[in-house]
Every structure is written in structure tokens, then in C-alpha cells.
């Protein structure tokens, strides 16, 4: 042992240095693909816009109650990059503020559904084959059998159509997918030797679930979370399209599209730019998520 230690460089022994080293390696792997980098750039831009919305939007007051008929229905120009809507509000500023609520919604929805879904999946997977597995997974099946948009819609319709209720509704329809994924991972991981070893040495169930099994699901989980930010936003936009979600006069991407459709084709910019904004956001998070998956997945065989 002593001789071995002498030959290993000190740096590798230091956990902090080692973590930094693996982070560097991951970054190298991630940055090799220009599409992942593009995704990262888009994500950074969107997060920046969302966080600093009041400072970067050219007309921050247009995100609320604001009417200016003098400048209504203006086509895109240097003054209004994406034109103005039917009551004279700057479309670009409203998109920036809509990004803000969209990202907020994605974070809240995932913060609710990921822990819940993962926990259910872990338990069902660890006890796979027993009645616990059957109960959890059949309940999951029922939730999955309804299209997520429809479930979210009916729940949001039953409750009041506020942003908070929409978030609850989307979370309810979102967790089963995490349960399914964690279940399939956990039910195979539980047969690994290190899990058996932990069981034999008398480790507690919580230790096995959270320290042995969960870390081995983490790369799939992170990938799915990164991708899902885009998809949650999309469902949120769909709900806002029918008037569920952020309530007017606050801007929602879907709401802007549905109002803009009535102005087609003469004022095409009112609907087109929010549609492109959604496309931009989902594209960014997809490229970014794919990049993370490639980085975290073991070497390709």
C-alpha cells in the first residue's frame, strides 16, 4: 500500500481536484459538439433575458396594463423589433416577459414532479414484483393513459385558471413519466452486486434507495430534466393558448399566439414571433439536453 501511494500523484488523492478534473473532462466532451454549444448559448441567452427582463426589455411597462393606440399594429421596425400588438404594446418586450413566466413555471413544475415521480419509481423499482410495485405502477398507468395536455387542461379548468393552478395541473400530469423511468432503472439496478452487498451488510432501506440506487439513475434524470424544461414550457404555452395560465394583461406565449391569430394575415408579426420564440426556446433546451446526455453517457461502444 505504501509503495502504491508513493507513485500516485497527490492531485488524484484530493477529492476537490479530482472533481474539478472530471468537470473539465465533461466540459471537453460537451464542447466538442458545436450543436451542444449552440444549445448552451441559447439557454444562457433565454435565462439571461428572463432573469433581467425589466432591465433588458426595451419597453418593460408593456408587459402589464398598457394601452397606446397611437402605436398599435406597427410592423417590425428598429423602434419595435417585432412590431406592436393590437393595443400598441411592444411584442419583443412581451416575449421577454413571457419567457420569464415560462421558465418560472418549468422550474416549479419540475421541482414538484421530479422528486415525487422519482421517489415513487425508486420504491416501485426496488420492490418490483411485490404488491407495492403493482399498486404504484398501475396508478401510474392510469395517469399516463390520459394525454398530458388533456389532463392538465381538465384540472386547470376545474380549478381557477391562474398560473399557480396551471403549474399544479401540469405537475400532476408530469410525475408519472419520472416514475416510469426511475422504475425501469431501479428494478434492474437492484440486482447489481453492490446493492446486494449493501443489503448483506445491513444498510438501511433509505441508504440503499438514496445512496446506492439513486446516484446511478442521476445521469438519466439530469438529461430528462434538461430536455423537459423545453417540453413543460410547451405544455404551458398550449394551456396559455386557451386562457389557462398567466392571466392577461401579463404576457403568456400561447395567449399571444391565440390573440395574434385573429389578426392574421394583415398583422402577421403578432402571432408569428411568439411562435418562433417557443421554437427557439425548445430548440435551445433540446440541443442542451442532448449535449448533457452525450456527456454523461458512458463511452459509445
Amino acid at each position, binding site marked *: 500500500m505504501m509503495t502504491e501511494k508513493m507513485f500516485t500523484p497527490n492531485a488524484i488523492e484530493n477529492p476537490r481536484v479530482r472533481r474539478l478534473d472530471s468537470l473539465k473532462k465533461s466540459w471537453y466532451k460537451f464542447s466538442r459538439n458545436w450543436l451542444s454549444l449552440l444549445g448552451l448559448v441559447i439557454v444562457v441567452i433565454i435565462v439571461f433575458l428572463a432573469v433581467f427582463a425589466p432591465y433588458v426589455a426595451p419597453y418593460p411597462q408593456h408587459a402589464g396594463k398598457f394601452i397606446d393606440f397611437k402605436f398599435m399594429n406597427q410592423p417590425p421596425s428598429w423602434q419595435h423589433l417585432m412590431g406592436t400588438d393590437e393595443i400598441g404594446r411592444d411584442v419583443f418586450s412581451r416575449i421577454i416577459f413571457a419567457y420569464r413566466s415560462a421558465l418560472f413555471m418549468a422550474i416549479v413544475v419540475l421541482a414538484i414532479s421530479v422528486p415525487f415521480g422519482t421517489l415513487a419509481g425508486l420504491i416501485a423499482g426496488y420492490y418490483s414484483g411485490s404488491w407495492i410495485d403493482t399498486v404504484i405502477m398501475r396508478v401510474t*398507468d*392510469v395517469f399516463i*393513459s390520459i394525454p398530458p*395536455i388533456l389532463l392538465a387542461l381538465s384540472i386547470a379548468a376545474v380549478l381557477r385558471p391562474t398560473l399557480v393552478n396551471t403549474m399544479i395541473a401540469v405537475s400532476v400530469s408530469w410525475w408519472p413519466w419520472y416514475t416510469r423511468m426511475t422504475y425501469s432503472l431501479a428494478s434492474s439496478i437492484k440486482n447489481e452486486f453492490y446493492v446486494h452487498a449493501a443489503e448483506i451488510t445491513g444498510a438501511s432501506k433509505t441508504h440503499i434507495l438514496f445512496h446506492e440506487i439513486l446516484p446511478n439513475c442521476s445521469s438519466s434524470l439530469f438529461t430528462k430534466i434538461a430536455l423537459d424544461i423545453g417540453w413543460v414550457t410547451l405544455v404551458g404555452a398550449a394551456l396559455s393558448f386557451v386562457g389557462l395560465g398567466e392571466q392577461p394583461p401579463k404576457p403568456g406565449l400561447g395567449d399571444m399566439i391565440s390573440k395574434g391569430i385573429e389578426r392574421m394575415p394583415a398583422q402577421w408579426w403578432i402571432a408569428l414571433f411568439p*411562435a418562433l420564440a417557443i421554437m427557439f426556446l*425548445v430548440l435551445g433546451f433540446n440541443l442542451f439536453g442532448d449535449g448533457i446526455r452525450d456527456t454523461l453517457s458512458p463511452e459509445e461502444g
Partner: protein
Amino acid sequence: MRLGPFILRRLALSIFVLFGLSILIFLIARVIPGDPARMALGPRTPVDVVEKLRQKMHLDKSLPQQYGFWLRDIITRGDLGDSLLTRRPVKQDIREFFPATLELVGLTAIFIVVFGISLGVISARYANTWVDKVVRLFSYLGIVTPAFAWAVILMLLFCFVWYLFPSYGRLTEGVIPPVTITGMYTIDSLLNGRLDLFWDAFVHLILPAIALALPPMSQAARLTRSSMADNQNKDYIASMIAYGVPSRIVSRKYLLKPSLISPLTVMGLDIAATFGYAFMVEQIFAFPGLARYGIQVMLNKDVNAIVGVVMVLGVVFIILNLTIDILVSYLDPRIRLLGRSS
């Protein structure tokens, strides 16, 4: 396990899921604040009349009993109650609006399957050439752009920049729809032998169907390509080629068939999900389908109609899943033989 018992088992499971779904929907409908009987009759109705309707609707019974009555009415008479919005039986509304959506999603499904698979096969066949790269880029854009964004873009291009397609409705305004047989205009007009009507209805379907099909179609193309690329390097393909089996037979029978398993599963889920996304596209193209009806009743808190719509779409979803499972088990005997449905 043979195919027969396998189907039976899946059928039993589907009925179980359907049962769970009905409980879930029933609960959603019952947690809506407010008295359904009062809501149906309006605020000015005398209390005793409301009480009578409450009794008729079994609202005075316990929750499990209510569920029992509710389920019995649906199963024995297909009775979902009256819609508060249209003042008609929900059954009648659904019969009117569902065929329109079915027609739309049907055409969408054809686009998804035909173009999804063929683009994937082309991409795999010409892997890493410019053809492959164009298809892959196109399918990535397809996946990340939601159907309603496509709807806006397509409408702008093909209805207003180039006047190629109509921008709203199921038929040109003023045209009398064909005699109702199935409720689907394209099929009814063919059954009536009216080719002009068929063309009119078909043209109205194309753009919404493309908008709905693009994201899942791109997904299918990507999956088909990657699973064909995976299987291409398997040993059994190499030995087939070494034995001198004609390459057309190798690619069609031994490469394509196993490669279609995962794309088919995903396509099935996507087609089912299309029923959910259809509402935005129907709204944008002012297409009077079930999804659009569903939105209106949801926004008006029309409980009976909400339950009806969710129930119908849930049943369609379950039927589609069942079909896909059977198809997949046909393609992949391992699932059947091990008795597992993934």
C-alpha cells in the same frame, strides 16, 4: 404465449386501466366547486326543483353510489348527461364533433407513418451523405417546433403568401356537407360519390394535418434511422450478406422489421397524443372538431361535457395503445413469448 392469449391479457389490462380512468374522471368532475344541479338550472330556479334534479342526478347519495349510477348510465345507455353549454345531450355533441377530429388525426397518422418511416429508411440507407444530413437537420427542426407553431407558419405561407390552401373550416363556406353516414366528410362524400366534395374536404384537412404530423413524423424518422443504423452492424445481418441473400430481402425482411419496433411504439403514443394537441391546431384553423369543443366546455366549466370528452379521448388512447402493443408483439416475438409487455 400465443398471440391469442396475449391479446386477451392486454385487453383485460386495458379494461382495468379504463376503469381507473373512469374513477379519476369522476373524481375530477365531483371536486368542481358548486352544485351541478344548481349550475344546470341557473340561480333563479326554486329550491324544490333543484332538489328534484339532485335526486334525479343521484347527487343526494354517497360518492361511491354516485359513481355506480354514473357508470351504469354510461355503460347501459351511453348516457353522459346534458351539456350546459350547448343544452344538448353530450352524446349528440360528441357524435357531431368527434368524426371531424378523427378524420384530421387519421390523415395526420397516415402522414406520420408513411413519411416518418420512409424518411428514416432513406436517411439510414444514405447514412452520412448529404441526403442523410438534410433529413436529420429537417427532423430536428421538426421535433423542436410544436404543432401550433407549425400551424401559424404554414398558415402564413400557404394561405396568405401563396394562396394555395383554405385557412379555416372543414368545407368552403356555403358548401352543403355530404349526407351523414360516418360524420367524416371525406369518407361520406366518397360514399355519396361526390368527388368534388371529397376534394374540398380533403384540401381543408391538409394544412392542419401537416402541422400536427410534422413533430411526431420527425421523431419517427430519427428513431427509424437510429434503430436501423444499430441493427445494420449486427452479426446476423453480416452473415445474411455472407450467405448471399439478396440485399433487398435482407434490408426489407431482416433489417426493417426488427428496426420498426421502437419507432412504432413511439408513433402510437404520438398519434394518441395528437388528440391532445389537436385543439390548438383546430383553434388556429377554426376547424370544428372535438378538441375545439373540449376547450370551450372546459372554459365554461361544463362538467358533463368535460367528462364526456376526456372519456372519449381516454378510450381512443387506450385502444391505440392496445393496437400498438399487438403490432409490436407481432414484430417482436420475444415480448409475446416471455409474456411481457414493455
